[in-house]
């Protein structure tokens, strides 16, 4: 499940993050669908800039959300990244 630690995920060129005014939520847009993102998911995607390894993303989120359980957060982040990578949304 866990992505290799050296991987620095970057949103793929075809995907675009958009703040949706109607639903007041972030959306991830790509040619065949749109994903509505919750707050955590949107924060993860924003950190996928091709410069941060997954570990740094987890650390950043942990600070941002004052997480009391970094291990659980790491599982959540890895799961989400793997899911959207399978859909070709990360490189």
């Amino acid at each position, binding site marked *: 499940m866990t992505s290799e630690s050296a991987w620095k995920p970057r949103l*793929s*060129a*075809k995907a*675009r993050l*958009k703040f*949706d005014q*109607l639903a007041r939520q972030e*959306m991830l*847009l*790509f*040619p*065949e669908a*749109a994903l509505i993102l919750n707050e955590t998911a949107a924060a993860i995607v924003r950190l996928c800039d091709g410069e941060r390894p997954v570990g740094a993303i987890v650390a950043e989120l942990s600070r941002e959300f004052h997480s009391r359980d970094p291990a659980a957060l790491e599982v959540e982040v890895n799961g989400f990244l793997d899911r959207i*990578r*399978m*859909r*070709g949304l990360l490189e």
Partner: protein
Amino acid sequence: MIAPRPYTPRPYTLVAELTYRCPLRCLYCSNPLDFYRARNELSTGQWRLTLSQAAELGVVQLHLSGGEPLLRPDLPELVRHARSLDLYTNLITSGTLLDEDRLRKLRESGLDHIQLSIQGSDPANAELVAGTRSHESKLETARMVRKLEIPLTLNVVLHRLNIGHVRELIALAAELGAQRLELANTQFYGWALENRRLLMPTLDQYENAEQVVVQQIARYRGKMEIAFVRNDYLSGEPKPCMGGWGQSYICINPVGQVMPCHAASVIPGLRFESVKDLPLGRIWRDSPAINAFRGDDWMLQPCRECPRKTIDFGGCRCQAFLLTGNAAQADPICRLSPHHAAVEAARTEMAGDASQVYRDVRNSRRLSARD
């Protein structure tokens, strides 16, 4: 007039068919048989207004389609306008009219993605289906798109003449650097239905292809996404068409008629209003044609009491009409449909010598005069 529903669903996707004109004559074309009548196309201003209204309604995704949208000289302007509305903008093209200049201009206008069709992996076979010499220039276009680093989906419509080549098609897409490959089995409407005896694969061919695709999906995972759109006649499962009629998709044809899908004009008795006459939001909410099959009040048996009605919505309304004469019937793909025998028969009606009906203006006039 049917009373407006208390709750109007939010549309997310707009398919804008800018023109039905096209340099290709594909045997499986999804445009209506009477496309030649749609000559009074929307103006640039009308499309701009329509896109703005779509964005207000909640549309986030725009597919610029046709015919061949590149035949509209105002394409870059429409792309620019769409991007100013923050719409994800995808160009669906046959790729024969693109040179590097036009492509750069589209990229600078903010185009997000290109979906390019090819008809096969070898030129002779591909051009038999397209009815034109086009294969090499399409490959050239694909290379140009990648050179300019525009995200690319390659789309191949599968049928009896090319379904044996899925392995080669996948290799070709990978070589061209596509991010995504859509292997879409022919859906039998319009021109494809006219050519069904020629295009329907055998069950063997279909199952072999599906097996190869499943293996290759695993092989290319993370590098190139491969999507396989099923042939419903052969898979036997009714498709949840458009995620339900009038739910999240809007299709607008070249003359501005607002429809739940690109094939819906085939159903008689439905009058699709045009954005030339009314604002898009009002049509989407109040149009009797769009409300005709929203929800499930319209369903007959066996759909009405079927536990799957919330999963497949009774299948496709256009297919129900085309195969039973009544759009409110269950899609005959379903084996519970009283008309399922029509589908059973079509699965084996192949004829290698059936004559080809190419999609062009001459045939469009001829077939429209038939009704």
